[in-house]
């Protein structure tokens, strides 16, 4: 398509979009907004007759209409309200995450956001999203709760692997000791992998990673992660793994899965070594 035709095409598309934006919307949404205006829309977010999905969408539309400096008010109220339908609270959380990126007043309402998120942790349908947002913000009380849950399963809010994943993003969350004990006696492979990710920053775990890497009874995922961790902590210990050679067709018949795993591991190690930083001159 020529540049001129491209321009014409885009201009047409833009004109269509502008026309569509100017039209009133139809459908159930329109019934809620029939009188127009942001206030009507706002009250529709709490309209007792409306289905949660519609109210969630109305909440989004309210946020879009407001200027970015004050769009968080309604979503914060909905998120913090334990009596609100989970679908609406989840939508509110998602909106608040968007506003946390683009609102110029976020520093002012960050404390309220964190408070609302901490309350949302109590609601099972919101727990994962709230914990994610809280740990992304580096919230220490949340880190402590997750740690407590790892040390005492009676207090656990989420499964072990999930808790470890959330805590792994902050080295100062002090989860390393717990990760070591989980790695020593993992309830499942997911927990082991997450524990290993935490320990990839622990120089004291080098020997453990060497053993895991050499242990052929471990899964491919575990051995690959052990190699990655070793590359991070003690790269001189990671040597290219030779591609396994088959002496005879009998070998192929007897251990096809092992060969595939060994091959995958060799490729993985090769990639780790290939992208290493060149040693620096002084």
């Amino acid at each position, binding site marked *: 398509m020529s540049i001129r035709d491209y321009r014409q095409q885009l201009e047409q598309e833009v004109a269509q979009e502008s026309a569509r934006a100017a039209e009133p919307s139809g459908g159930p949404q329109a019934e809620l907004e029939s009188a127009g205006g942001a206030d009507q829309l706002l009250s529709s977010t709490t309209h007792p007759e409306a289905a949660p999905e519609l109210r969630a969408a109305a909440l989004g539309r309210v946020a879009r209409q407001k200027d970015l400096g004050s769009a968080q008010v309604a979503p914060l109220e909905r998120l913090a309200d334990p009596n609100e339908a989970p679908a609406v609270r989840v939508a509110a959380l998602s909106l608040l995450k968007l506003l946390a990126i683009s609102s110029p007043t976020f520093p002012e309402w960050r404390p309220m956001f964190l408070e609302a998120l901490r309350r949302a942790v109590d609601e099972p349908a919101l727990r994962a999203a709230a914990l994610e947002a809280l740990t992304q913000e580096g919230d220490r009380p949340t880190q402590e709760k997750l740690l407590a849950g790892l040390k005492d399963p009676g207090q656990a809010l989420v499964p072990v692997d999930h808790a470890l994943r959330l805590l792994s*993003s902050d080295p100062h969350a002090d989860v390393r000791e717990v990760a070591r004990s989980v790695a020593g006696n993992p309830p499942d492979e997911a927990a082991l992998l997450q524990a290993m990710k935490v320990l990839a920053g622990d120089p004291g775990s080098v020997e453990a990673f060497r053993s895991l890497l050499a242990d052929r009874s471990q899964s491919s995922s575990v051995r690959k992660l052990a190699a990655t961790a070793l590359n991070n902590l003690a790269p001189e210990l990671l040597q290219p793994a030779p591609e396994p050679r088959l002496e005879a067709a009998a070998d192929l018949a007897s251990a096809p899965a092992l060969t595939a795993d060994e091959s995958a591991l060799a490729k993985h190690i090769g990639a780790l070594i290939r992208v290493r930083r060149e040693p620096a001159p002084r």
Partner: protein
Amino acid sequence: MPLEIEINGSATPEARYIAYAPSPCRIRQTPAAGPLPVTLSSQPAQPGGGQAVFYSDPAAPSSATLQLTLPADGSWVDFGLGGKWQAPSVDDRDCLLIATGNGDSLTVPLMVRLRKDANTLLPRERDRFLEALAKLNAGGSGRYQDFRDIHVAAANEEEHRGPHFLPWHRTLLLDFERGLQDIDSAVSLHYWRFDQPASSVFQSNFMGATAQVTLDDPPSDVALDSGHPLSGWITDGVPGISRSALFDTQTSPAPGPPGFDLLSEAATLALGDVYTDFAQMEGTPHGAAHVSFVGWISSIPTAAKDPLFFMLHANVDRLWALWQWLKRRTDPNDVKVYRGQNRDGRRLDDSTWPWNGVTTSPRPDFAPGGPLKPSPTTAAPGATPTIRGVIDYQGNSSAAARIGYGYDAVPFELS
């Protein structure tokens, strides 16, 4: 050799990269008895390769060939060389510039190097990009850390929530891309077109197979093929890339939160004719794209840990570039093109942190990464760029403003 050509002010191969915007070139003959008429043309080195067009001066329309007369005394004759619309390179040196005159000819291989829709890359383009990206991270101890350190909460005011959002991120991406090109000069920062399904991007051989979840679920790490260059990706000392999607990456575009939908390309362009209106796109589609995932990319303090972040932002920048082209908004002196605020880092002629190294109030006390990386293909925007310096990125208003990159789907010529 009777003919000599320089591209981007240099005879070296490092400078032989062009985008759509005409690169300054020149040609001469060794001193001879008389003037020499030459014809310049371009063709791909192999089928599917890149092709270039010629500009007798930057304001002139492009032409497929150019006739020049080279003076007898051997002085240089200038001309412009840009990529032909919709004929970018796929490989390094797959575009040929050919000069013929009086039986002599000179062929110079070069690359029409453009940022492309990542979903359309050939496997070898994709793999080169991934290799460079992985080396930039170097298992956590590479220069990727600088970009991780720049995009943190403490520096928010420098980067987000204002008119400077778009030029600041344009500068970030330029620095990042030049970092990739230091490793492999044939690589560009390709974009993730979030308003369309991008099934190839979210695969285990590219940016990772990304599971679909709801907000109720925790994220998981993306799945990568064995031996994938990003296998050893480490940020903040932790391996892996934590990202799941709130949509089916194989069939759907990124949706945004309910009621705050991610705008399509056309709807984004339709936000308005002036910069202040267009810059609303920081909310949607930009913010909406970020929060279409669960995992690092959904929050500012952690977003830059996921390399997809840079491809997301390349699309944001492409939308701005496309709007600039469509609305002819390239002269930085026009407030319809950029309207700043009366605050450091937001006025048209303010330099941009951290590349300006300014660490006195109101900027943060730290400025990671040093000055903006140079490029062998252009002197712009300089080591300490300003907002002004990145607005006219193709040099439509002022040829010297060309900063050396372009998008496959954003033309140079305004008409």
